[in-house]
């Protein structure tokens, strides 16, 4: 792997240069929270932050997106596909957990047989420059789900903060091309040693992994277990966990029409909502909180392994820190796991 360096003081210039050629999203403060937004200049970009409240998935699966639009005249209807050409796009400063989430979304939306052309259109132009986590939070559990505070999976370039400088790890060819164009200098031996020290120090800070060997097998055997009910008693089915989650991707498709002009819109939806699976007959296979929360857990930690060979969770901890009733997914998993071990299901 190639390693480059850049001075922290040069980052604004670095970004302002990139803005000339690319569309860039970076972490900024908006309404008192950190979010990813498209920027016009490096002003206001925050690189000392834990993680954004909302995940950056919106750049590949927007919360609202027009799939087709149409207008109806006397006897003809014109239908238009909305596949606008996308400008080359850099997601700057994303955390490694969020970068990994893009690999997961690729598996869902870019499968050979049913490739989602809208997703591909946005995803193809994305280059991810992620920022390793020197200050993991109490809610972070990326290492349990296969990632880490400096995991490079999903990133094209990964920045490591070593004090006055960042080391830039060059992960992909796409990343290498960008670095080459910018003419960054190679990292020195002492800088690389410092990088190793920073990474080790940070990794020591992260909460220890949940001990969940063969969690999937145990979940598969506990589908009908009684613990689901007790564990999910306090869930409000508000769906905030699914909206903030970087891997949750469920959506609805609805039509909106006014004056014979209309749009077919794809909009985020949530498995936590009662109407999500309600059939027209009134039958609902997931009628209560229990079945809906169970679906979320089973989907991420069992079904996704079957279908994509990857856990559908990157351990970002947003669903823990933002849950209005403090339902902690780590405690749920641990409780399920150990009650299953002791055969209490």
């Amino acid at each position: 792997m190639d390693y480059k360096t850049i001075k922290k003081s040069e980052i604004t210039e670095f970004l302002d240069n990139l803005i000339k050629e690319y569309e860039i999203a970076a972490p900024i403060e908006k309404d008192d929270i950190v979010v990813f937004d498209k920027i016009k200049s490096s002003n206001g970009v925050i690189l000392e932050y834990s993680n954004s409240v909302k995940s950056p998935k919106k750049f590949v699966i927007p919360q609202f997106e027009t799939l087709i639009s149409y207008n109806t005249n006397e006897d003809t209807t014109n239908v238009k596909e909305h596949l606008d050409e996308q400008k080359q796009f850099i997601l700057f400063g994303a955390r490694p957990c969020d970068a990994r989430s893009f690999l997961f979304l690729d598996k869902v939306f870019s499968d050979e047989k049913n490739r989602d052309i809208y997703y591909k259109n946005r995803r193809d132009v994305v280059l991810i420059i992620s920022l390793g986590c020197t200050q993991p939070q109490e809610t972070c559990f990326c290492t349990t789900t296969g990632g880490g505070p400096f995991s490079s999976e999903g990133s094209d370039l990964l920045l490591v903060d070593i004090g006055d400088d960042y080391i830039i790890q060059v992960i992909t060819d796409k990343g290498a091309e960008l670095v080459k164009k910018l003419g960054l200098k190679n990292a020195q031996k002492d800088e690389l040693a410092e990088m190793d020290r920073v990474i080790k120090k940070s990794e020591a800070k992260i909460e220890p992994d949940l001990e969940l060997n063969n969690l999937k097998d145990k979940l598969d055997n506990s589908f009908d277990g009684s613990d689901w009910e007790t564990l999910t008693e306090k869930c409000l089915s508000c769906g905030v966990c699914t909206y903030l989650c970087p891997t949750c991707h469920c959506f609805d498709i609805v039509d909106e029409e006014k004056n014979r002009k209309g749009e077919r819109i794809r909009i985020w939806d949530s498995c936590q909502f009662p109407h999500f699976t309600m059939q027209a007959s009134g039958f609902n296979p997931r009628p209560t909180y229990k079945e809906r929360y169970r679906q979320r857990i089973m989907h991420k930690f069992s079904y996704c392994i079957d279908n994509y060979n990857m856990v559908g969770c990157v351990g970002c901890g947003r669903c823990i820190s933002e849950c209005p009733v403090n339902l902690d997914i780590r405690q749920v998993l641990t409780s399920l796991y150990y009650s299953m071990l002791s055969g209490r299901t």
Partner: protein
Amino acid sequence: MKNPYLPTPMKVEKNVIETGDRNIKTLTLSFLNNKDEEIFNFIPGQFVELSVLGAGEAPFGIASSPMEKKHIDFTISKVGLVTAQLHNLEPGDTVGMRGPLGNGYPIELLRNKNIFIIGGGFGFSTLRAFTNFMLHPDNRKHYGDITVVYGARNPGLLLYKNELSEWEQRNDIQLHVTVDKGDESWKGKTGVVPVIVKELSIDAENTTTLVCGPPVMIKFTLPVLAELGLAPQQTYLSLEMKMKCGIGKCGRCNIGSKYVCTDGPVFSLAQLNKLPQEY
């Protein structure tokens, strides 16, 4: 690259009331563009998303056989926003269609088998498609005995009445039509589907069963099939779930790790027995 969300424009040829309560209609569509028609191939048991612009989309099993060129049938029960709009369509109107979607009945595996079809209510529509497919002169020789049990709550709710009469006349299909409750004019069988199935003598050895109908029918029919000696590998069910995308992305139609829209809607009972009972 193909846009899986872009509907193909279809023309309404007919929209015929099927049932006495006027709540079920069969919609017959043809392609507006020849090139769409040329590339459209399907297997009985597959479904499509039909859409009325402004109202939205909903999934429907294809009710006609792929051997019938030029037109495609859908039998639609009026239960919601989209289906109400579909019921209002008149010949010449345009409707959108995405598909075919899903796996369909395992027509290759079913070759040279005796076929036992069990349908209830308007779940019969894709079974009708497959039955017509088998009865086609080019295909009939590929299948053994064909036995059909079809039930509705009352005579007025029976679908495809003309076709049922035609099947009655044939000697290469055993048809058993039943209603839960008859009326003065009803001369056929009375009794719920599982009871009728129980009375039949089926050679379990070389028979494969296809079942589609309301949950209560399925619940009471499966034990009867087991009694008749039909193993879970010989029994196929076509399932229904709330769907949006139809291509395994939107996340609502899964049973365990299987998506009804892409892995189904047809599953063997052996497959279903391995999945959570969440359907």
